[in-house]
């Protein structure tokens, strides 16, 4: 960093760096540089910056920069989510393969649990989804399945012909797609599946084709 006595030479240093030195100042600046290592170092730095400036034409400086489309952020999110799903699928397949030799015993244990549990898995977890859009309503029942969570959803008021995505978010913050559907007149009931254990589900929500959330509810598995 230059010291205060160097302050008067700052403008000249900048001019020298970009090759626009005022001849009237040149001798004085050179004399100062002879005795000031800090200003010599600074001039080297500024000159390197000035050389970098030469890598672009003036048009690039004055024209508006290219900006990404408004949906790129969501596309990035979807690509990463897809990658995550693929990885989860691989892990699940490995886990299933490892558990293969215990399949018979596991089936017996599951049967016993269901019997003792008194049918709770069949009743499922019911949620009512909220919406900020007037006339839109939905409810869903989530049931645990061997391959994930089955979602029976009843929805009304979504725009006919428009596409919607149903998502289930896990306790680790990851969202898992449960499927797509299109809006229709009246009330529609459908069955979708998310590759996520019901015990990990924390949120169920619907987005439209502009990636806006149109329905949403927290999930509290029993």
């Amino acid at each position, binding site marked *: 960093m230059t010291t205060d006595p160097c302050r008067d030479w700052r403008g*000249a*240093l900048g001019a020298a760096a970009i090759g626009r030195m005022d001849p009237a100042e040149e001798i004085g600046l050179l004399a100062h540089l002879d005795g000031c290592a800090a200003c010599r170092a600074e001039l080297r730095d500024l000159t390197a910056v000035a050389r970098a400036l030469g890598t672009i034409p003036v048009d690039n400086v004055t024209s508006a920069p290219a900006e990404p489309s408004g949906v790129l*952020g969501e*596309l*990035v999110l979807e690509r990463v989510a897809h990658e995550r799903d693929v990885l989860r699928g691989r892990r699940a397949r490995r886990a299933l393969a490892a558990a293969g030799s215990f399949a018979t015993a596991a089936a017996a244990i599951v049967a016993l649990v269901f019997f003792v549990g008194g049918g709770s898995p069949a009743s499922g977890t019911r949620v009512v989804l909220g919406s900020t859009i007037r006339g839109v309503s939905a409810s869903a029942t989530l049931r645990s399945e061997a391959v994930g969570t089955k979602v029976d959803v009843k929805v009304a008021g979504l725009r006919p012909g428009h596409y919607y995505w149903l998502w289930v978010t896990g306790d680790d913050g990851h969202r898992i797609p449960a499927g797509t559907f299109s809006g229709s007149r009246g009330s529609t009931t459908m069955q979708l599946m998310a590759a996520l254990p019901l015990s990990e589900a924390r949120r169920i929500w619907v987005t439209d084709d502009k990636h806006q959330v149109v329905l949403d509810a927290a999930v509290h598995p029993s």
Partner: protein
Amino acid sequence: MADSQPALATDDGVRAVYAAHGPELYRFAMRSLGDRGLAEEAVQETFVRAWRAADRFDDELGSLRTWLFAIVRNVVIDLSRARAVRPGLSQVDAASDDGLFVDEAFDRVLTAWQVEEALRMLSDEHRAALVEVHYKGRAYSDVALGLGVPVGTVKSRVYYALKAMRLALEELGWARDD
């Protein structure tokens, strides 16, 4: 564990990292590839690779931005090779058919992009002084007259603009040529 892994581990984290760095990654890819579609593909692929490699990121070795730009650099090279699109075709003439053009040409595109981004990071006053004096070649006195300020003020603004440029360039991972 590095800070970036939690940042990229959830949707909200990915969204936040995209908001902070996505547009400049896009501008870099756009400047390199010269095609909007390819540039958007490059940004998506960059985030996927970053997500896969998040546990290898060490914030003590460099910033998240620098790390992301190292990734997008490789993505752009891969896309260029795969689709026979030459980086920065409109500006860089170093493309050759033997595939050896990449490093030198790419580094020139990279520096050009860093300069553009650094210029955008300047204050309006500093940028205007630098553009008028350096890029447009106007005399200090003319610029001072136009702005209604003393010549010394314009000189001072050019000096501080260069200083700020240096900091901004270093933040963007600029490799000096000396």
